[in-house]
């Protein structure tokens, strides 16, 4: 994992731990744990957009990209890498 990824993972994990008011590890599936409702799901998506300056498109809203801090970190970096090279294509991720 690159240094940037480690920082992102750390930051996302801290956000989740604070927002869900319990310790959340990098591989904890907080959806499966029943910690996420519709309201927090949107809060999480909006937070990722604001913090990492990206736009989560309809195609990006795959639960598999959001269910753990580590997956979310990978999503953020893939999204950033896409944005730097070429326009994001729907369904690529």
């Amino acid at each position, binding site marked *: 994992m690159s240094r940037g990824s480690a920082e992102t993972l750390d930051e996302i994990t801290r956000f989740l731990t604070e927002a869900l008011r319990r310790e959340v590890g990098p591989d904890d599936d907080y959806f499966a744990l*029943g910690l996420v409702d519709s*309201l927090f799901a949107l809060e999480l*998506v909006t937070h990722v957009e604001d913090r990492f300056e990206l736009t989560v498109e309809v195609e990006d*809203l795959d*639960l598999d990209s959001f269910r753990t801090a580590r997956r979310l970190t990978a999503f953020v970096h893939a999204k950033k890498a896409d944005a730097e090279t070429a326009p994001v294509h*729907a369904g690529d991720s």
Partner: protein
Amino acid sequence: MTAPAARPTVKCLVWDLDDTLWDGVVLEGDVPPPFPPAATTLKTLDSRGILHAAVSRGDHDTSTAHLDATGLGEWFCAARIGWGDKSVAVRHIAETLNIGLDTVAFIDNDPAERAEVAAALPMVRCYPADLAGQLPELPEFRPAHVTAEAAGRRLLYRTEWRRRQAEEESGGDRRAFLASLGLVMEIAPATEGDLARASELTVRTHQLNSTGLVYGEEDLRRLIAAPDHQVRLARLSDRFGDYGVVGLSVTELTPTESVLRLMLMSCRVASRGAGELMLSHIVRQARAEGRRPVTHFVPTAVNRTMLVTLRFAGYAPVARDTGDGAPMVLEVPADHPVREPGSHVRLLVRPAPGGRSDR
């Protein structure tokens, strides 16, 4: 000058107590009797689903004790008694009840208090105390839809108040709090007795709403009777009481697809996982009937929550030949696993109408 017709009807009337609801000042040792027109207005507006709250000067315990002694306490679902700015108290009441300030009205005999509220919160409609008896005549106090649910709204909010206290006492452990609620969701086909409430939901629900379609009672009656449509309602209850009818879905059936034309869930119960639960039932039901679960989605300024909920429930965008302005079409892929309902809620599915007593 009266309020323009375009403004929303009032959802909550906030009362000053001394010299407005009752004839005198409770702090000075009086036992002031309520003004009869004010007491009548309380009951009339309550029957229309309009809530009452109190924002008044004085000692909280003394004032609320007198409110109960007059027999009027049961009509109120929130109270802020103290010495701070009344505009702050009014704003707090609106946040607690989760309603917009443009649906809040304020009545007070003191012009200075009305001016303070009006200056800080220009969207709040303010009335002098001598209008108390006439408020029910005003158009802004005449909601278009009055249902059994609306008339019971006060009880729902009083119950919600107690739930919120329990949540604060749980210390933020969401799973433990949800598990402690003993939630039960009942999903059943809509019946004739549900039409007014079902129509009201399509008008009042905006955030967890997939397409924003508004159905009148006549539309719903026709869809309920149509063999190629299903109209389902979700009711929710917990150990504190009944939330009432909170969710609605309208599904169009084709030989191969079960197309969700409208799905909505009251924002009051979004934090209970109610939207996810109803969607997973709809997906399971479609598959059980041998149809592919499809949904329409029309984005608005406020319904992205619904899009996220649909996507996380497994609905994925599909390319179709649709013209401009056509709804987005999403479908749950055949290999997508459907989440089972969480352990925090019991799901009851009623397959056929009948047998349930309507309130």
